[in-house]
């Protein structure tokens, strides 16, 4: 394992100690930070490693949130619903990936963005199951006090983040990660050396979906109420990209650092400039792309400097 991957795991273990230092508010922040890191790490598998500009994150986040919400309403336990949405989203994304990842560049970006729209509309129209645009109320999972709840959901989100990080690190050291890197650099050559690019890309897309979906599920149970415009918000697709760009494409610790930094900035902006927070986010994006296109990691001279390939 490289030093930076080990550092990432240490960082996550330290994060687990958060409840020792903070109250319910700190836990709320910690939960969202973990969620963002999950989204960013997941996106990085398909966007950073394989080099496909996916905007589908929101689709899987919403999918997981609704799958969990609906199943919880049917009386299934939370752990089982999360597991189910994890598995189904992996399979669904794998299948979709086999088709959509034949597209490249802008066409893939638009198709993945449309996926968000399609799922959102489907949920919107399946009123009987999802409550449609009115949203879906989700029964309380535990209800044993504010602090206990906050603690429970923080550790649930943290657990998924840890699983994501371990998976992503394992992928980056494996044949799969090596193959995805080949695909990013030269897809034609990948096929010529015997790499089944379709299979690899499908798995990557599946991996980029399943943890996001699980996080969406935890989120739904946590906030008790979801509606399509909330969980299928395109911002859930764009923020992970900004975080990954902020930290440095491809490097797990860079991406997680980017997620935490982004979340910190967002929180400050939210608290102080609620009316113009999205505009400030926009300014941030523009400045980032103009002045730090390879992310924070590029500030460390010589190390991990990777040039993003034209996609």
């Amino acid at each position, binding site marked *: 394992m490289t030093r930076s991957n080990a550092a990432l795991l240490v960082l996550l273990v330290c994060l687990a100690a958060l409840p020792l230092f903070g109250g319910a508010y700190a836990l709320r922040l910690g939960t969202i930070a973990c969620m963002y890191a999950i989204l960013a790490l997941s996106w990085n598998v398909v966007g950073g490693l394989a080099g496909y500009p996916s905007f589908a994150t929101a689709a899987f986040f919403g999918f997981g949130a609704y799958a969990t919400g609906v199943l919880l309403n049917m009386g299934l336990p939370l752990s089982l619903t999360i597991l189910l949405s994890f598995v189904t989203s992996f399979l669904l994304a794998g299948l979709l990936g086999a088709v959509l990842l034949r597209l490249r*560049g802008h066409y893939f970006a*638009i198709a993945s963005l449309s996926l968000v729209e399609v799922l959102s509309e489907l949920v919107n129209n399946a009123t009987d199951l999802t409550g449609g645009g009115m949203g879906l109320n989700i029964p309380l999972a535990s209800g044993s006090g504010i602090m206990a709840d906050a603690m429970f959901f923080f550790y649930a989100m943290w657990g998924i983040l840890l699983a994501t990080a371990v998976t992503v690190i394992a992928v980056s050291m494996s044949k799969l990660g090596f193959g995805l890197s080949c695909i990013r650099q030269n897809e034609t050559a990948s096929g010529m050396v015997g790499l089944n690019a379709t299979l690899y890309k499908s798995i990557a897309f599946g991996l980029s979906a399943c943890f996001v979906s699980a996080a969406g599920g935890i989120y739904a149970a946590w906030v008790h109420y979801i509606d399509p415009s909330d969980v299928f918000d395109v911002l859930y697709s764009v923020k992970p*990209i900004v975080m990954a760009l902020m930290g440095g494409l491809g490097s797990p610790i860079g991406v997680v650092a980017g997620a935490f930094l982004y979340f910190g900035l967002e929180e400050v902006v939210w608290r102080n400039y609620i009316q113009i927070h999205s505009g400030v986010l*926009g300014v941030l994006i523009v400045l980032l792309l103009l002045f730090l296109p390879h992310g924070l990691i590029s500030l460390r001279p010589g190390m991990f400097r990777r040039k993003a390939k034209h996609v």
Partner: protein
Amino acid sequence: MWLTQVLINALVLGCLYACIAIGFSLVWGVLNVINLIHGSFIVLGSYLAFGLYQTLGISPWYAIIVAAPLFFVLGYLLQFLLLNRVINAPVLVTLTMTFGLDLILNNAMIYFFKADYRKLTLSPPMGSVSLFHAVVPIDRLIATVAALALTGLLYLVLRRLRVGRAIVAVRLDRDAAVLMGVDVKSIYAVAFGLGAALAGCAGVLMALVYPISPLTSSTFLGKAFVVCVLGGLGSVSGALAGGVLLALVEGVGTTFLGPEHATTLSFVLLIVFLIVRPQGLLGRKGFE
């Protein structure tokens, strides 16, 4: 009877859709940039028409004349000062950049104009007319004709004007255009400016047809996506074909499946087209 109404509606709406999409298509085709600010440009155009009519009583027909140069300058500057710096970066970067710019513009509009829906109502209202037994509101009809005129104007600019020829040259082969002495960066800025001007004018026309709110920008953007992919990239005829096809699909979808499924249908169609016929109805294959 029913069929003519659906067809006429599709034709009228299709031209408006083409007008929404044409600037987006131009920018995508020439600059290879998916311009996510496009939807907000359209909404801004609507606000311009609304403001001019409410405060100064200037009719939307004249507002187009004001909007075109204003938006051209806005687009030109945006491209020249910001987007040209990242124009050779990967898709991800340019796409995210225009997303960031869209956030800024959209937030600014919500801040200044609030998010509630407004409607530009002409007084006295223009009524409606019967065309082949189908009922069409007159203001909508005029908007359609104006949309067609704008698309036609772009066609003429690309065909006849020197700068138009340069834009087409850059679209077909950037490197060759550079060798022929075309200043690509300024052509990019002109093309982006034209795209913005078309969006602004489309917005003025949309003000006659749809309620105005910053929240509608993503709907316009979504339509532009679909029209471009269906019709094929970067050609005027492609945008018209895509616009009419989308309007037809929506019309038929609404009739048979109900209005709530029309959008789903159009996006499913988008994905199918991307996979099966990425060059669109009238586009050329192998051009990204």
